[in-house]
């Protein structure tokens, strides 16, 4: 029995990936490019290398173009702000010219890492001569990775990548595929990397259920997509494209990728305005998250300033700001100021009161030897415990016992 017959008999036992329409047996002419007229209409031109080719699309946007809530010229302002301002931040473009930022996104044939997940589209944009130039390199069939990476690597000239989740996905995947053809193409250059996914998480986790770029675009950046192809269909469309070579479907994927990249520019601009306090419509909650971010990277001055601006008011953000500011003051040994803030948070019933009580009790006990005051805050804390947490409870009881002993020994 032939192997194929056996295979067909065993078919029910073999897990097969989903079927797609039958292939055409057409052999691609290496030099003649199918559908070249349609490609040209979409500003896509071939790039030849070593008897092979890939396809490159180039689009230029004037700087006065508005994508979402921002003009691309606002991005130039953003770079300027970082360069002029005092802030230190992982996303700071200080020391960069606007031209040196490189907004980058890929499309792949599958999900997740792994050697077999092929990148079929490398897209990027950067400022060139006061225009935003967007370029996309498309793999016309799986055997053309050498021209794809060759064309990509000889055109790129950048200092820092800007991506959305590119640190853990896009760039490692570029490295993986590049390793397979490393003997035929230039080396990958080294560079800085701004991953805006992590920034978005920090700022908008409280508002958005999911932090996909398309959600951030819609909810935060004011970007409206028209006739967009959802990203998850991209692999299917690509598989179809390599069978029939018709640009129609894949052009949709190119356009989807194009909007992703444009949104990265807008997102970077928006994040800069948020981080540097340039957004008049920034919510108090957003400001607070920005403050927390500065605090977590040790930029205490910047963080303190932001927290101080938020302590007036009676909302939760005000309490959070007071509490965070108090922690910072405690660290700086401004005990008196810290205590005032902790006491305020402790006395105003809110989700941080419990922690604030403990903090206040600690300061009263250790710095002021005011055991009575400390016991008072422990008692408030005890009342605030609505859920039974035996660990917390035990700690608290231990503290009270200790305080009472001390109080007996050194009354007043």
């Amino acid at each position, binding site marked *: 029995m032939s192997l194929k017959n056996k*295979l067909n008999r065993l078919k029910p036992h073999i897990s097969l990936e989903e*079927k797609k329409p039958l292939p055409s047996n057409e052999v691609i002419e290496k030099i003649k490019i199918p559908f070249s007229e349609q490609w040209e209409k979409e500003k896509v031109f071939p790039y030849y290398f070593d008897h092979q080719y890939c396809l490159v699309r180039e689009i230029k946007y004037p700087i006065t173009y508005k994508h979402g809530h921002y003009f691309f010229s606002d991005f130039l302002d953003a770079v300027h702000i970082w360069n002029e301002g005092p802030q230190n931040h992982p996303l700071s473009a200080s020391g960069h010219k606007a031209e040196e930022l490189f907004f980058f996104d890929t499309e792949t044939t599958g999900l997740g890492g792994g050697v077999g997940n092929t990148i079929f589209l490398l897209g990027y944009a950067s400022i060139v001569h006061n225009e935003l130039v967007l370029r996309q390199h498309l793999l016309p069939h799986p055997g053309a990775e050498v021209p794809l990476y060759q064309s990509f690597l000889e055109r790129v000239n950048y200092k820092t990548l800007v991506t959305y989740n590119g640190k853990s996905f896009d760039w490692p995947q570029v490295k993986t595929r590049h390793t397979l053809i490393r003997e035929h193409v230039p080396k990958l250059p080294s560079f800085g990397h701004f991953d805006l996914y992590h920034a978005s998480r920090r700022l908008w986790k409280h508002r958005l259920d999911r932090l996909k770029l398309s959600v951030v675009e819609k909810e935060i950046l004011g970007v409206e997509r028209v006739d967009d192809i959802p990203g998850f269909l991209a692999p299917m469309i690509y598989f179809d494209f390599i069978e029939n070579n018709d640009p129609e479907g894949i052009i949709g994927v190119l356009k989807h990728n194009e909007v992703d990249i444009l949104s990265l520019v807008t997102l970077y601009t928006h994040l800069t305005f948020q981080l540097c306090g340039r957004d008049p419509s920034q919510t108090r909650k957003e400001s607070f998250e920005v403050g927390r971010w500065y605090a977590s990277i040790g930029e205490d001055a910047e963080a303190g300033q932001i927290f101080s601006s938020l302590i007036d008011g009676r909302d939760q953000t005000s309490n959070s700001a007071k509490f965070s500011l108090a922690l910072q003051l405690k660290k700086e040994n401004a005990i008196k100021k810290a205590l005032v803030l902790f006491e305020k948070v402790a006395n105003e019933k809110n989700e941080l009161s419990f922690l604030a009580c403990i903090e206040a009790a600690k300061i009263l006990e250790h710095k002021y030897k005011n055991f009575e005051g400390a016991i008072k805050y422990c008692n408030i804390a005890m009342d605030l415990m609505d859920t039974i947490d035996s660990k917390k409870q035990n700690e608290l009881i231990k503290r009270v016992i200790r305080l009472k002993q001390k109080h007996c020994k050194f009354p007043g």
Partner: protein
Amino acid sequence: MIGKKSLQEIIEEMKLSSYYKKNIVTWQTIEEKPACTVPLPEDLHPILKDALGKKGIDKLYTHQKSAYEAALFKRSIVAVTPTASGKTLCYNLPVLQEILTNSTSRALYIFPTKALAQDQKSEINEMIEASGMNINSYTYDGDTSTNIRQKVRKAGHIVITNPDMLHSAILPHHTKWVSLFENLKFIVIDELHMYRGVFGSHVANVIRRLKRICRYYGSNPLFICTSATIANTLEHAQCLTEEEMCLIDNNGAPSGRKHFLFYNPPIVNKPLNIRRSATLEVRKLAGELLKNKIQTIVFARSRVRVEIILTYLQDLIKNQLGSKSIMGYRGGYLPTERRKIEKGLRSGEIYGVVSTNALELGVDIGQLQVCIMTGYPGTISSAWQQAGRRHGESLVIMVASSSPLDQYIIQNPEYFFKRSPETARINPYNLIILIDHMKCAAYELPFKQGEKFGGVDTKELLEYLAEERILYQNADKWYWMNDSFPAHNISLRSASQENIVIIDITRTGHVKVIGEMDSFSAMTLLHDEAIYLHQGTQFQVEKLDWEEKKAFVKEVDADYFTDANVAVHLKVLEVDKTINLVDTEVGYGDVSVRAMATIFKKIKFETHENIGSGPIHLPEEELHTNASWISLNKDFSKMGKGQLEQGLIGAAHALNHIAPLFVMADPQDIHVIPQIKADHNEKPTIFFYDRYPGGIGLSEKIYSGIVEVFHETKKMVEGCHCDNGCPSCVGAECVSETAKKDVLTIIQSFLNSSFQPSEV
């Protein structure tokens, strides 16, 4: 020690005591064998010499030296190494020597389980640390924390892993392992005998992929394999790795005088042929030894058994020795716990260990004087593994349970002592397995036209995958063109593609997956209300969701098990081989097996009474596989149709016990069914088929040894102490008074005709 008897005294006593004497059915003494050693190799690196010195090693056993020399001459080897014979030096010496000479060199160690890998890491790291070698060895498995993974990939001289991890994490990400693959000098495969059956067939294909990736990065590593004693070590190693191998079997490790006893508990119920429980008998034997402070290891087949025996023994000796002096040991223990047990045994704080078969691998038990097996461990090789190898005089007692297999072994000692151990079978050419790994391989690197995958011509397979829209052909290459990650859908240790996941819902909030089973077996073992045994614990199936492939089970304590009736329809699709004898016809070929579960019965433990039944509503399953068969040309009309049918069923039942023994397979992997009138030749026929789509070579092996299988089966049935056939020999379905006789008549008629050509 006053009042304590020595092992010698106990051995003498056993020979004389009337109680023991009548139960000991075989007493085999194996004489001692002195060590064969040679000086350390001259060219051994001084640091390595020093490291060995610190471990007190100043010479090598002959097999260690041979392994070292073979590696020096760039030959791949497989070393046959019984328990505690210093097998790790067979690979650690050449590997460390190579890395000390050339620090860019890399080695990959593959162990069948995570626990064994951990053990090896500790052992090799002790050696590395003791002598200050600048060598990094790491384990790479599911437990490796993400922050050191990068370091393992880039800087690990020795990477210790398991085949599953290689399959799903290392090979599909080979670009992250460039420095390993470019410099790979050695691939070490330990416990080679574990890679058999379906699992072994998968692993052989993983090795094909591994070798393919090595070639891509320009390395050509040597293989160093070690294996327990099996009949076909060299053949198995070559089949698994597709490498020319050199067999090293000049084991130079010493072993002491060994008494190997077969112990059959007395019959307590003559008419029903019920023997005293092996567990109770083991308690008596082990208790006697432990009271005399003789270090003893007891093996039991399930976790529950281990717990029961452990409790018994701890209770028995708690006043004399303290209950801490006996430890239980099950699979899944951490290396530190194992070390603690080993240390306790060495220092004499621990006298006894009760263990599942897990201890067979991974704990050095060389100093234990006595080993007691509760029941036959299933294969000759694992029995010898458990029996171990001690330096002084030692005693091994195998206590039989009343299972037919145990009874067969104990009544046929020559089978155990004279026969070479089992043959390990794999079939790397099983199409289902092969095509799965072709997919993974294509994901890892495109296939070139004309490229071979191991010994396989790929053209037709690649065309098939392209037609199925999984690969895409461009010019002379075949590219992976699918959005899935193929390795995630392929499990090396499961039998078939669409497995049923078994979910334990005993405790709400702690629902967990405890295993999986192929859907063909699930029909009979996981239907609604079935009692499912998982590592000795009883579960009842609450619901089998056939569409979703999930079985929900709850722990129960029932005094019965369930037995499902399956209507099996087997059809021969193509006859590949036949032998026509005078009275019989023996064949081998492709078959289709259609099975439908009909009803199940609840059967009481011990008495085997039928205490209830219920219907099973599941769709018919179809399996395409290989089978061998034997048909009778003789006219059986005088026997009567009913009697013939009963006889065939009984014979098939008996054959089903012996067949797995013969091919060294899990009883699950091979099935036997009778047909009173087979579709293809209209003759009374007994079929043996592989319980895995496409076959894994088991029935083919039966085909070539069918006479022996029938012969041994006949002996088993004859040797059974029942009068008219019992559940142990011919099964519960044969109830007539002539059942046993009919079965023997039928087996004999197969045998008569089969022997004829050689007699003529």
